[in-house]
């Protein structure tokens, strides 16, 4: 802690202190650093493997261009070579940020480049939802002090990869990442219960219909629907169970922020849900299935007791 800070008397109430201890526990730099390294490595592998697909996408017919998010500043697509260059730059900067090289610059720059490249990838008529969480996590890590350990910066600056100090700024990073995670699941849950059926969505018929449509689309576009989805189609009760579990995980997501154990139970439930989606629908939410997305619920390193 820096010694110049003075307590703020008006907010010295036990409730405020408890909230701060919960959401901003005094932790060591290793805590966000592990998340930076794990997320950065996943992103590098995930995106570099898709490089050819991105390049083909950038060269598409301009009539398919439907910009979303920050890409809305464009009225027409970038020349493919420029878009390819930005994509490659994003991968290079991600590697630098992951290694913790000049993170005060590469961190925010990486956040901006990841946001741009994935937004641009989603600007070709189809909005995919599998990269939202990864992008938001990278933005949090890029904008915070996540490279004060396990980084070239810390090695050069402090002579060690494992600085031994406590600061609430380090404990706040996993919380911010979990807020992004919660937002994804909670809005997904609201989308279901705010539909025409309301809470009757939990009956399972809608989910069953979605899985049926998804399997048929795979058939009708030359892919193959997962055998599990077709085999389970008639098990109506199973879809009721799955729908109830999905709603519980999604609408219960905010509870994961108030207690570490609850957070870990939520992480296990959400991971299981994605595994189920993978088996039954063949949809790969790779970031979620890898488990990296839930690492902030399992914080590394010690923190000062309340």
């Amino acid at each position: 802690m820096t010694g110049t800070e003075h307590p703020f008397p008006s907010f010295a109430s036990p409730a405020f202190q408890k909230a701060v201890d919960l959401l901003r526990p005094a932790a060591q730099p290793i805590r966000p650093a592990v998340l930076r390294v794990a997320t950065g490595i996943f992103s590098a592998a995930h995106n570099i493997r898709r490089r050819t697909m991105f390049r083909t996408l950038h060269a598409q017919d301009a009539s398919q261009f439907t910009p979303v998010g920050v890409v809305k500043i464009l009225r027409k697509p970038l020349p493919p070579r420029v878009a390819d260059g930005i994509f490659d730059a994003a991968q290079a900067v991600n590697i630098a940020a992951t290694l913790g090289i000049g993170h005060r610059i590469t961190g925010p720059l990486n956040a901006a480049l990841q946001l741009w490249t994935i937004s641009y990838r989603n600007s070709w008529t189809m909005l995919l939802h599998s990269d939202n969480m990864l992008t938001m996590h990278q933005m949090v890590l890029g904008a915070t002090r996540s490279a004060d350990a396990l980084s070239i910066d810390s090695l050069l600056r402090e002579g060690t990869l494992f600085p031994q100090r406590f600061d609430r700024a380090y404990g706040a990073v996993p919380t911010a990442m979990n807020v992004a995670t919660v937002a994804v699941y909670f809005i997904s849950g609201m989308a279901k219960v705010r539909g025409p059926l309301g809470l009757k969505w939990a009956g399972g018929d809608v989910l069953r219909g979605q899985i049926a449509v998804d399997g048929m689309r795979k058939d009708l576009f030359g892919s193959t629907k997962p055998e599990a989805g077709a085999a389970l189609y008639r098990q109506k009760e199973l879809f009721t169970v799955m729908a109830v579990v999905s709603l519980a995980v999604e609408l219960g997501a905010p509870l994961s922020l108030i207690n570490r154990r609850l957070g870990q139970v939520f992480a296990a439930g959400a991971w299981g849900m994605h595994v189920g989606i993978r088996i039954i629908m063949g949809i790969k939410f790779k970031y979620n299935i890898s488990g990296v997305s839930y690492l902030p619920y399992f914080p590394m390193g010690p923190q000062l007791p309340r």
Partner: protein
Amino acid sequence: MTIDLSYHLAIAPSPRATERDLWALAAGVAFAAVLLSPVRHYFNGKDKNEQDSFPLSTYPMFSDDRKDRTRIPHVAGFTAGGERIVPHYSHFGAGGLNQVRKQITRMVRQGRAVEVAQRYADALAEQQRRSAGQGKSPAALRRRKEAGIVRVEIVRSRYFFDTYFAGNTTPQMETVHARADVGGTATAVSETRHDDAQDAQGPPTGPMARSELGNIPPRPLGTGNTAGDYVTENTIQNASVAASQSAPRNTSPIAQPATEQEASQ
């Protein structure tokens, strides 16, 4: 000599909250509010799909009630013997199945089905000029299967889930928007085909029948159905009755104009 182990053993108490923590929490609340802001579209009556964006999404997936049926614009290939073979989506473009599907759906809705047909016909012709190969990889198997395709059609097909998953993958109704011979030139088409063996209101195992109300059309607008559902049901019912009385299965000159909502399903 005193050795302060508090850092290493983490036995020192947490520091008291400060003004800095107050501002940090306020920033955290603002951050959460921004991330959760798409939820407002579920209360302000706006279309969740139109409001979807990145990375602030409305996450509309898995939330639409499709009841017991769907209509899917796609591409069907046919061999010289009339066998129906689905060509792979990669003949159209990159980005994965769902991206190609969405792009084709949009082009059909915009009246650009001929362009889709031409692109598939050209891609298949190019593939057929090369050797299909002898390997056992999924791609090689697919190329050999597609080698027999002589014609492609851009269709919008209606399926009932229970019928489809019972093994009958013939569409109950199908509108043809464009047609192209492989290696040839695509032309616009306006035809509708029906499978008269299937009940236009769905199989007896479907939700309509299980509701004990029989295979009746959905309730009117405002009672739980979307505009697309209601229009679709009535449109198809009328078209299929007219067509089934006057034309044999597989040919009907009736072309159904696609509403935006239907085409986007």
